[in-house]
């Protein structure tokens, strides 16, 4: 992670913490306790405007996944220049008691992904803008589970 220190987060409203210990910034409703991501100005459940920023949990379980097998269009995607497109994993990660967050996955082999597996927040370079970092989830190594 050392080389990422000088890089900018793709959106500091969305990713907080540090490059070593990033945190996703959601919000929590003071009225009904609903957690959203990214941060909202009002609660999508109860419409209260009494919502506050909250750093979300960094570990969760894979709730669903797919592999993005073709390059998305640009815009809105930042194209990876002329180098060849690499398929990447995408999934929803259920952060227990909080919310299910959509994210890129560091794993792109369908054989190595299964619903329910433990996942952890990390940072990866933004495709096509390698001076910036975006968030992703990676499988928690067997040893750490």
């Amino acid at each position, binding site marked *: 992670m050392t080389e990422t220190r000088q890089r900018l987060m793709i959106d500091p409203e969305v990713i907080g913490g540090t490059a070593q210990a990033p945190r996703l910034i959601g919000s929590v409703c003071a009225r009904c306790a609903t957690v959203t991501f990214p941060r909202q100005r009002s609660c999508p459940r109860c419409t209260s405007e009494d919502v506050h920023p909250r750093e979300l949990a960094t570990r969760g379980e894979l709730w669903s996944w*797919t*592999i*993005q*097998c073709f390059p998305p*269009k640009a*815009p*809105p995607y930042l194209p990876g220049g002329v180098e060849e497109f690499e398929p990447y994993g995408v999934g929803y990660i259920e952060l227990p008691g909080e919310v299910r967050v*959509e994210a890129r996955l560091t794993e792109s082999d369908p054989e190595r992904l299964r*619903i329910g597996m433990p996942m952890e927040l990390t940072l990866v370079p933004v495709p096509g803008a390698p001076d910036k970092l975006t968030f992703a989830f990676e499988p928690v190594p067997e040893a750490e589970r």
Partner: protein
Amino acid sequence: MSGGGDVAVVGVGIHAFGRHDGVTGLEMGAIAARRALADAGITWQDIDFAAGGSDAAGNADTSVSMLGLTGVPFINVKNGCATGGTALTTAHAMLVSGAAEVALVVGFDKHPRGAFNPLPEEWGIGSWYGETGLMLTTQFFALKIQRYMAEYGISDSTLAKVASKAFANGARNENAWRRTPLSEAEILGARMVNHPLTQYMFCSPGEGAVALVLARGSRVRELARVPVYLRSVAFRTRRFGSFEVFSPSIPIESAPSATSEAAAVAFEEAGIGPGDVDVAQIQDTESGAEVMHLAETGLCEHGEQESLIQSGATELGGRLPINTDGGCLACGEPIGASGLRQVHEVVLQLRGEAGERQVPKECRVGFTQVYGAPGVSACTVLTV
């Protein structure tokens, strides 16, 4: 919706779906409108309200310069894939309110190859979402069906069967785009787009147009050979907890989908149950959508799709024929036209005028469901 039983479809018109170089979307819309007017035996001057829309092919009301400048009130609607449904809802309300007696609805579109390029800002999401590679409808569909398959035991074979049925029906529909039958094996073996969905399990952006003439009260009997009553039209947006396209997060607490709610309201207002439906067109943006919508609309239970589809019940000759015109998979998806195409097909089936693809059993009750981003669903119940 009070008085809904009084409104009927008295004319239908379609411009073939597919690719049509040299014809604009607006022209296709005008052609479909003229065919619907001719089917009802009236002219454009007889229309006292119009509603229509396209997603990417211009303002529907501009077609008055082709149809005739009669001064008719013409509302353009724009609700993504549900545009046809909201055009129908608007016209229905104008008829029931007494503001109009004979209305035209038209939907059309003309998307370039590989279109659909939504921008996060237009959907109220930060640009990081698109830049990170998450702003794709195909991903959403894959993520949704992947989870659904695990929860309810749906097989890859069932996804493939939905697509092979669509192409078989499309082969019998002169207005469909994809008219070549494909086997289950060919579909499963095709290029993977987003696991578990292969190339042939997705519909493509396309071109086409559909128009309907609606009337109320005494005008119905004057105009229609076989009136097909619009017993209800209902649409709903998503509730908190429903899993819809372009969601950076979804709550753990789940909620009924917009489709579940719109379908329930449509059946309730019509006084007809899902078990009474003889033929249905439901949104099949990809194979998984048809599978999930079958249960969300109440046409079967969650998980029942596996046996239902494997048994052939949703095929033309089955107990519950679904997407008899080939659906979005075989017709393609011109966004503004899709919802009205469904109604067009149900009207033909209920009139017994669906030709080669006429459902062999007697059809008295039809149902349609169209779903569009970001979580809008519109359903209708139609009867003869």
